[in-house]
């Protein structure tokens, strides 16, 4: 179980590392890509029709081929979202209206499957566009959309910080495990885990301060006083038109 905890933490760190990639010459304008990613993810999440999320998943795969993105990279965050939604939607399937009767109902299963589909589609389309533009351009895109500087920094910092923090947590869990004796009682084990959680909170603060300094030390233009200008090309226009058509399809 403890090994599973570490494996899950490492997997999540690796998934965030995927978003932590770079692309110095993306096909799309960063602001257009971020805006489309947000609109399409929103559309997938709130769609009432099955076709829209299904189409978005297919569009993501097509985009992966067009943008020459390694499918293995893209699939990881999508599968994680899928699994997380399966867990979240499990009560819908297992606990029908009358919670005492463990008898699945077809309508509930359909609802759960639709929820899983929408969440997976939202993650698929959002991830493909973000992987394509990369970390630096994501920040430039967010700035281009005139979002508050603090918000842009928080997003950028989180993508860098969460994998570092999760790996630190893994080390701490491993260090605790190394000193755990066989036949540990549950009560003692819980106390130990609580101590790890407290230590993690304190360390995370220290680590975030250090990472902030490390980021600042090599930041020359990431947060300039005026947003960087990126021209809008044909691909951007096509992406915007497709986004508008998908939103319209959802509304119809």
């Amino acid at each position: 179980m403890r090994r599973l905890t570490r494996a899950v933490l490492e997997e999540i760190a690796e998934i965030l590392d995927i978003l932590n990639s770079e692309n110095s010459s993306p096909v799309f304008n960063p602001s257009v890509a971020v805006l489309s990613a947000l609109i399409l993810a929103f559309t997938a999440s709130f769609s009432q029709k099955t076709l829209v999320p299904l189409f978005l998943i297919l569009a993501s795969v097509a985009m992966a081929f067009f943008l020459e993105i390694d499918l293995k990279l893209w699939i990881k965050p999508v599968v994680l979202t899928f699994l997380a939604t399966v867990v979240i939607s499990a009560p819908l399937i297992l606990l029908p209206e009358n919670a005492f009767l463990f008898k699945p109902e077809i309508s509930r299963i359909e609802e759960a499957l639709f929820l899983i589909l929408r969440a997976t589609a939202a993650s698929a389309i959002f991830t493909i566009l973000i992987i394509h533009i990369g970390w630096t351009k994501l920040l430039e895109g967010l700035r281009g959309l005139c979002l508050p500087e603090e918000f842009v920094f928080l997003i950028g910092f989180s993508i860098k910080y969460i994998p570092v923090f999760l790996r630190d947590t893994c080390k701490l869990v491993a260090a605790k495990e190394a000193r755990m004796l066989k036949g540990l009682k549950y009560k003692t084990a819980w106390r130990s885990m609580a101590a790890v959680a407290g230590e993690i909170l304190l360390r995370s603060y220290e680590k975030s301060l250090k990472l902030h300094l490390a980021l600042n030390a090599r930041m020359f233009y990431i947060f300039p006083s005026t947003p960087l200008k990126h021209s809008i090309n044909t691909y951007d226009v096509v992406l915007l038109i497709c986004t508008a058509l998908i939103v319209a399809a959802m509304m119809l």
Partner: protein
Amino acid sequence: MTYILEVLDVHFSYPGGVVALRGAFLKARKGEVVAITGPNGCGKTTLLLIASGLLKPDKGRVLFDGTPLDEQLPQARKRIGLVFQNPDDQIFNSTVYDEIAFALRQLELKEEEIAERVEEIAEKLGIDSILKRPPYRLSLGEKKKVALASILVYEPELVLLDEPTANLSYKTVNEVEYIISELQREGKTVIVASHDVNFIARVADTVYVLSAGRVVGFGEARKILLDRDLLSKAELAPPLIARVAELLFDKENPLPLTLEELAEKLQKLKHK
């Protein structure tokens, strides 16, 4: 005299009231290797963080090339490189390549040029075979080299190294020394914070001794590193070679600081 960096009478306290610096100062000329030494917790790292503009002093001034550093930020960061003591605090990218290319990507260079420069520095530091690997799976020595490469790749004029030899093998320490001498040959200024006096004796021109946030002595490396009284104030002792030579030779003689100097002195004695 042209100083690239002047840290003048700086005071700094961390939140919670821990006083790290009490009127510390430091000056570095272009092309000079300056060492800051002192016991653990004396304020060496804080002084480097202030010198790089990452921390703002509570009192005092930092001049970079004759102009206040805070007025030149963030652009001046292109000219200053800081290598942290613990590489895990500095490395935050998913691959070694991305880590080294991080600063170059902000300079809006073409990907081909970035690749060329990354490969060049990686080859120079002997880490070209690990460019695709995730940094968290590397050894400490490799991580230190990656951290160093990520700074040297954008060719800063002022390089600040915090405990560059801590926990490193003999071979890697030699490589770090070679890199420092190369940087000096290229006319760059290097400031090293270290409590390894043997290492300082081999690389530094000028030494500042820090104790409890104050500079208790500074001057030419030979003079400072042979001043037993001054060093003892900072819980340090002269380099091992100097202590061995002290036992072998008359104290009046200029004592050797490095192995090469000791060998030379012994050769002369042999010929006599």
